């Protein structure tokens, strides 16, 4: 989720906002999070990074509202003599691609610089997957000499002053510089690190980590800029670059292409539209509409596309058009989600409840008849609870933001927690819970066996209470069981039984040992029953 804020005054230089237009913003697919005197805030979904910048968003909204519709064209100047970037072989195994552009006639003020940096950062996080897939560098052209070389050097050969710091070696940057520390993983294991060099072999940056402080920061004085995106996925890099340069172009800059001298030379940026084949029939069938070619053409133009049936030409900065269905959604958005008429088709299906759900509901009903209250607890337990109850082979979560880190192996542990949280509530307390418990099981699809369990807890309660409840439940279900004496951690020896049904152990009942009660913070005697429901499901 990316939330983006625009100054309302800046925004209204392009589009005057009123209630109706604010409403439309959400219908474009950018939920309006907030709009006040000073600011508007929208959410941009990950499929539309081209809407992150004010310029990109205004471009889309204007068109959606019916102004300047259709495929927007930008003029690109062909690369001049030195406007090129040479990619060396050294870097091909490390971070193989870069696409670059030059922007001239920039007129930057603080607000624009801030918004460009903001766009760059948000693209790093979203499209760039935290700079892994794409990292962007923007440099004042006045401070560097073309052509540019994209290469890789040994850490020992890299020495420059990164942003906000004095001169450092590559290793120092990775160890000490905040950006270096944050992104050092991206260069882990590399023998050489990627660098951009200018014609004087001055280091411009060490992507994807940091720019040089001398050449790596645009200011209000910057009139021309060199822009590069480096990474592993050429298509994605092109889109990223396109999002940036169209934003700059909308700010009034003129964009110059560069020739990228790779094993297969290319010229970037490339704004030629993408082509998707559609069928009017498919679109109408999917959306439940009756649109003709003209309707579709008008709707597509509102979303910035152009229809030359059967092909749709889409802007080169759209990252989300993978298939005809993506075009269908744009048509639906242009048509207006608020205009679709709902309909329930008459298709013959018959309802069916899961048998296990029926049995669970029946068991709950029987226990409620015994004045028991159902509880509903977390499926995870705390590590200390697992330790206290000597859980064998706990199934642990890799990373949890709370104390709850282990899949519950039974319902007894959570029940103890709930009862301890209710020590001051009126007694007697009679509770039950039905829900899955988890155990490791090799050779199953997930390696974990998930089994519904039933827990009954009665406090104050003794063995007789527990057994009475179990008797009543089993006789109500028309089932039989036997008890076998058993020792179980946490329960009193000699007052604990294993519940056997059809010669198979399915659970236990007994009185909880005062030691366990004390450690769990309980104050009253407690009797429990816990049975696995799987065997009961099989019998009923």
């Amino acid at each position, binding site marked *: 989720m990316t939330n983006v804020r625009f100054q309302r005054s800046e925004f209204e230089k392009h589009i005057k906002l009123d209630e109706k237009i604010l409403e439309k913003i959400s219908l474009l697919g950018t939920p309006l999070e907030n709009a006040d005197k000073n600011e508007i805030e929208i959410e941009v979904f*990950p499929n539309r990074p081209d809407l992150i910048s004010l310029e990109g968003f205004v471009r889309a909204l204007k068109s959606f509202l019916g102004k300047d519709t259709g495929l927007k064209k930008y003029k690109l100047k062909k690369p001049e003599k030195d406007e090129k970037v040479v990619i060396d072989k050294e870097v091909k195994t490390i971070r193989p691609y870069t696409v670059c552009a030059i922007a001239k006639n920039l007129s930057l003020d603080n607000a624009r610089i801030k918004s460009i940096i903001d766009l760059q950062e948000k693209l790093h996080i979203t499209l760039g997957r935290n700079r892994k897939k794409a990292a962007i560098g923007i440099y004042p052209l006045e401070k560097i000499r073309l052509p540019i070389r994209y290469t890789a050097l040994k850490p020992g050969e890299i020495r420059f002053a990164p942003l906000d710091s004095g001169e450092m070696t590559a290793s120092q940057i990775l160890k000490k510089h905040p950006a270096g520390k944050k992104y050092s993983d991206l260069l882990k294991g590399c023998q050489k690190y990627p660098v951009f060099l200018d014609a004087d072999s001055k280091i411009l940056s060490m992507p994807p980590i940091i720019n040089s402080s001398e050449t790596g920061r645009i200011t209000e004085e910057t009139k021309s800029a060199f822009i590069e995106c480096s990474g592993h996925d050429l298509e994605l890099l092109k889109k990223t670059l396109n999002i940036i340069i169209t934003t700059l172009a909308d700010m009034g800059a003129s964009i110059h292409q560069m020739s990228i001298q790779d094993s297969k030379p290319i010229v970037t940026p490339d704004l030629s539209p993408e082509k998707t084949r559609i069928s009017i029939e498919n679109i109408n069938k999917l*959306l*439940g509409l009756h649109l003709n070619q003209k309707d579709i053409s008008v709707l597509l133009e509102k979303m910035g596309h152009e229809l030359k049936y059967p092909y749709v030409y889409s802007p080169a900065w759209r990252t989300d058009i993978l298939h005809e269905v993506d075009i269908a959604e744009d048509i639906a*958005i242009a048509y207006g989600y608020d205009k679709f008429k709902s*309909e329930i088709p008459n298709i013959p299906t018959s309802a069916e409840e899961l048998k296990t759900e029926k049995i669970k509901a029946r068991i709950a009903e029987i226990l409620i008849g015994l004045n028991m209250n159902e*509880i509903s607890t977390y499926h995870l337990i705390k590590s200390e609870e697992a330790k206290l109850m000597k859980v064998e082979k706990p199934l642990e979560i890799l990373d949890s933001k709370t104390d709850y880190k282990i899949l519950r192996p039974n319902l007894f542990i959570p029940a103890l927690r709930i009862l301890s*949280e209710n020590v001051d509530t009126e007694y007697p307390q009679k509770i039950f819970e039905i829900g899955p418990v988890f155990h490791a099981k090799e050779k199953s699809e*997930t*390696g974990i066996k*998930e089994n519904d369990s039933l827990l009954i807890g009665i406090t104050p309660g003794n063995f007789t209470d527990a057994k009475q409840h179990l008797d009543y439940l089993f006789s109500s279900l028309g089932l039989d069981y036997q008890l076998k004496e058993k020792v179980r951690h946490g329960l009193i020896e000699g007052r604990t039984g294993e519940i056997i049904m059809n010669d198979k152990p399915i659970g236990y009942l007994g009185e909880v040992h005062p030691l366990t009660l004390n450690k769990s913070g309980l104050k009253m005697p407690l009797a429990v029953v816990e049975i696995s429901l799987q065997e009961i499901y099989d019998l009923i």
Partner: protein
Amino acid sequence: MEHEMHKITDSLSPLEIKIIPFLGLKVEEIVKKTGLDMVSVLRALRFLENKGLLKLKQEKETIIDLGVNGIYYKKNHLPERTLLLLLSSKNILSLEEAKNLSKLSDNEFKVSLGVLKRKEFIEIKSGKIFLKIAKGGLAEKTSEEKLIDILPIEKSRLSRDHDAALQELRNRKDIIEIKEQSSVSFELTEDGKKISGKEIKSDLAEEVTTEMIKNPLKKQRFRKYDIGSAVPRISGGKRHFVNQSIQQGRRIWLDLGFKEMSGGLVQTSFWNFDALFTAQDHPVREMQDTFFIKKIHGSLPEKKILDAVKKAHESGLDSSKGWRYKWEENDARRIVLRTHTTALSAKKLSELKEDEIPGKYFAIGKCFRNETVDWSHGFEFNQSEGIVIDPDANFRHLLGYLKEFYRKMGFEKIRITPAYFPYTEPSLEIHAFHPEKKNWLELGGAGIFRPEVTIPLLGKPCTVLAWGPGFDRLMMEAHKIKDLRELYKNDLKRLREKKAVIK
């Protein structure tokens, strides 16, 4: 008037009848005379008050009483008196001698010296204590001793002369104890005065006995109850209100002709993510967002499905471009606590037989995300999932099913806006208008499964409508809960008192 009194005496309970002869006395004395306990007497008095026979007065008073040390000192002496008595026999003593001979504790000794110095009874010079006061003066009690003699006393009755002594003793450990006490007294009304002191003989029956049933008398009169008076609360067993709501949601989907899907909370990443066209580097697949299980890796489905899913991701199928990256089997084997019930829908699609299309399926169940817990977040949440597999289904049908579900849940007005999920296109977000709060609630997402999802799982293209909006928000509204944590808290008192929601 006589008739009125009769009505009252007919309704007297045995408890009331027992105390009426003693109504001229104070509450404590009634307790003594009747042999009843205080609680019963108070209850009887309250009953009589309800009948207009008396007026209860409850007063809070502050009692100044002796503390643990105070009781001891009253029996023996205050430590300063002990020291004075010692000095009166010796006149001059070194500090050390005085301490040893008096047998006072360090603290008592220090306090005593301080008090006596302030009262100018003694003088200390070069380590020696001199008695300054004439021996005759020693006989008189100090103000502190005088205070101790009159305790316990109600604060308002304590004269101002004792203020200083009270202050002094309160500063010392456990000599004084101040207690809040409420005392009950009552005043008889005119009717009360008439009845007070009377022995009431009653031929009214207290309860229906088995004897009475055997020999029923038409004339039998029963004591009248005050039917408006409160009775002790009882509470019964209940399902947890979360499960009550889930039952309600399940019922609605069943009424709409849906079949219920089953499936575990634990899933392989394959079913939770890969089968749903969620790229392996999508942020939701990082452990900051999702619960992965340590050390365990699962197994993958048959090769046909696996290859198709791999192709959908790597290069796309059915004219899709795919996500263009190298898809790794090992990532798909990682075990997760399902992040959405949509994992069940994916699995269901892969199991469908030709004659099960068209089909409609639902599930309402728990899902997980790696999240801290506060009033609006938690690491567990419930989702209401549904799919409709129907070659003729369309976007308007999707709206139809959703509208009908929410209408039955009590929301007449639904609005949809565009949304994004990796596995649906078009995608939408559902908002419901809250009829009382007059605002829009954001309920969650829905859409039509992408061909990159359906083709590998069904083996052919087919429209599948899908939704998985959260269910907790609806429950919070239904049970008027503002804090999400309450859904998971299990406060037995609240569970017992919870009102039934019928819709």
